[in-house]
C-alpha cells in the first residue's frame, strides 16, 4: 500500500492544480459571452434535434485509418522495447505485421480512402 502513496500525492496535486486554474480563471478572467460561445459544443455541432442524423461516411474512413495506425503503434511499442532480445525472428514477425498494414494502406490509398473530397 505504501508504494501507492506517491501516486496518491500526485493524484491530489493534480486535482489541486486543475482546481486552482479553473478557480482563478472563473474569478479573475474577462468574460465576453456571445451566442456561439454559449452553445453546448463549441465545435459547432448542433446541440438540439433528432439524434438519428446521417453522418458522413468520411468520418468512418478517418476512424478506420486511425485504428490501423493506432494498432501498429500498440503492437510495435512493446516489440521495440524488447527488440534486441527477440532478434531476427522477432524482427521478421514485426516486419510481416507492418507489411500487412502497408498492404491495407495501399488498398485504402488506391480506393480513395485518403482523399477528403
Amino acid at each position, binding site marked *: 500500500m505504501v508504494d501507492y502513496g506517491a501516486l496518491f500525492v500526485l493524484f491530489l496535486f493534480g486535482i489541486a492544480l486543475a482546481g486552482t486554474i479553473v478557480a482563478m480563471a472563473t474569478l479573475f478572467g474577462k468574460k465576453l459571452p456571445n451566442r456561439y460561445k454559449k452553445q453546448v459544443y463549441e465545435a459547432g455541432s448542433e446541440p438540439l434535434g433528432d439524434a438519428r442524423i446521417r453522418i458522413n461516411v468520411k468520418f468512418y474512413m478517418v476512424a478506420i485509418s486511425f485504428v490501423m495506425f493506432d494498432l501498429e503503434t500498440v503492437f510495435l511499442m512493446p516489440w521495440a522495447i524488447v527488440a534486441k*532480445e*527477440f*532478434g*531476427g*525472428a*522477432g524482427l521478421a*514477425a514485426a516486419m510481416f505485421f507492418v507489411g*500487412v498494414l502497408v*498492404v491495407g494502406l*495501399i*488498398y485504402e490509398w*488506391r*480506393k480513395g480512402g485518403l482523399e477528403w473530397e
Partner: protein
Amino acid sequence: MIGFTSADLLGLLPALLLVLAGMAVLLLEVFQRASFPRTHLAYVTALAALAAAGVSYLIAPAEPQTLWGGMVRFDALGCVITAFTAVACAITALGSTRYLEELEIDRGEYYALLLFATAGMSVMVSANDFVVLFLGLEMAAVAMYALTAYQRRSNLSSEAGFKYFLLGALGSALLVYGVAFLTGLTGSTGYDEIGAALRAPDAARHFANPTGVVPFLPLPLVGMALIFVAFLIKMAAAPFHMWAPDAYSGAPTPTTGFLSGAGKIAGVAALFRLFAGPFATPDLSGGLAGWTTLAFFAAVASIVVGNLVALTQKRVRRMLAWSSVAHAGYLLLALCALGVKEAAAGSIRAVILYGAAYAIANAGAFIVLAAFGRDKAEADTLDELSGLGRKHPAMGLALSLFLISAAGLPPAAGFVAKLSLFSTAFAAGEGAATPAYCAEMLQWLAVGGLVLSVAGGLAYLRVIAHLYGRDAHVRVDYRPHPATTLGVAIAAVLTLWMGLMPGRVLVWGGNVAKQLLPAEVQAAPAEVAPAAPTEAPKAIEVVPLPTAELPL
C-alpha cells in the same frame, strides 16, 4: 519462447498461403481499372485455395506436433479440415464470378474475404490455445459478416449481414466469457494446461468451490457450457439457429454455400478438438454425462427443427438454410458419440466424411442455384426452378447430385457419410457411458435422426421433382460461364468420388482419430466392448464435477 522455427511456419503454411493470396487479390483489385472484369481473380482465388488444400494434404504430419510455443496444434485434423474448407472456397470462388457480374458487385474484395475466411477457419481448427482459437474464429467470422452483407445495395443482404453480425458477436462474447472462467480457474489459456488442471485428481473439490462463496456451482462446467453455446450459435444449431434462415437467404447465393458448409465443419472440428482434448475425461467414458449432454439436446433439437421446417419452405435457399440446421444436428450427433469411448474413433471418422461431403456438396448446390437466374436476380422459388433440369441437363444433373448427397442417398457422398454417422451413433449405444441410459438415448436419437432425415430428404427430392417438371418457367434461365462449369465439375467429381470410393477419406478420418484421441481410448474398442458397465465408477472418481448439477 522467443522466435520461431521453420517447423512453426510449415505448420501454418496453408493459412499463410491463403492470407498472402488474399492480400495479393486485394492489391490486384486496386491496381486495375474499375471497368475491367474480375473473372481472373476468381481463378487466382481458386488456384490459391486449391494450392492451400494440396499443401495441407502434403504436409500432414505422421505424428501430431505442437508449434508456436504450444499455441498451435499441427495434426491431421487441422490438415484435413483445412483441405476441405479450402476446396469449398475454391468451388465458391469459381461459382461466384458470373453471379457477381450479374448483380454488378463484381469486385476483388469478395475473393479476398473468401480467402481470409478460409484462413481463419484453418487457424481455428489448428488452435491449441483459446487465444488462437478466438483469433481464428474472429478472422473467419468478420470476413463472413462482410460477405453476407456484400450485396450492399440490397436491403435483404444488409439485413442478413446485420443479423448475422449481432448474433455472431453475441457468440464471440459468450466464448470469451467462457474462456475467462476456465482461465480464471486454471491460470492458463492453453488447451493442454487447462485439460491437465481439469483432470487433476483433486480438481473436482478444488474447482467446485474455489472461493467458498458459492458452494454448489461447478465453475469449469459453466465455462465449458458458455464455450459450447458460442459454437452452437456459430454453427446455427438449434436452439441457437434463429439467425440462420435470414442470413443464409439474404447473403449472396454462392457465399451461402460456403458459410453454411465450410463454416459448420470448421466449427465442429474445433469442438472435436476441445472434446477430445482439454474437456475430455481421461478415458472419455464420462463424456456423455458431462457436457456431452448439452450436445445431445442440441442435436435432437437441430435435427427435429431443421428437417421439419425445411419441409414447409417454398423458397429453395430458405429450405437449404433450414436443412443446414439439421446438418448441424447430425454433426453434433457425432459429437455425442465421441463421449462413448468404444465409438470415439468411429465418430471422428464419420464426422470427417460427413463434414467433407456436406461442405463440398453444399458449395456445389449453391453455385448451381446462383447460376440459375432471371434479369438481375436469382431463381428462388420452386416454381422458378421448374423445368430447368430438362433445359440444361448437365447443370440439372449436378444440382440433383448435390441435393441427393444432402438427402443422404446413394451414389452421392452424403449416403456413405450418413451411413457411417448413424451406425457409429447406434454402436455408441452399446458402449459404456455414464450414466448408462445416455448411451441408450443415443441409440434412440440415431433411429429418430434416421427417420427425420427421410423427412428432410423429401424437401430435397421436391426440388429435384420441380427441376424435371413439365411446365418450364419462361424468364428463368441458366447463365453459363466456364468458371461456374469448372466449379460445379470439381464439386460433382468430389461428391461422386467420396460417395463411390469413401475409403480414402475414411483413412484420413482414421488418422485424425489416431492423432486426436488419447492412447488409452484407442486401445479400448476390441477388449472392452460388451461388458463395460463395471468401468463406470472409475470415470466418476476422476471427473465427478459435471455429473451432479445437470438436469439429467
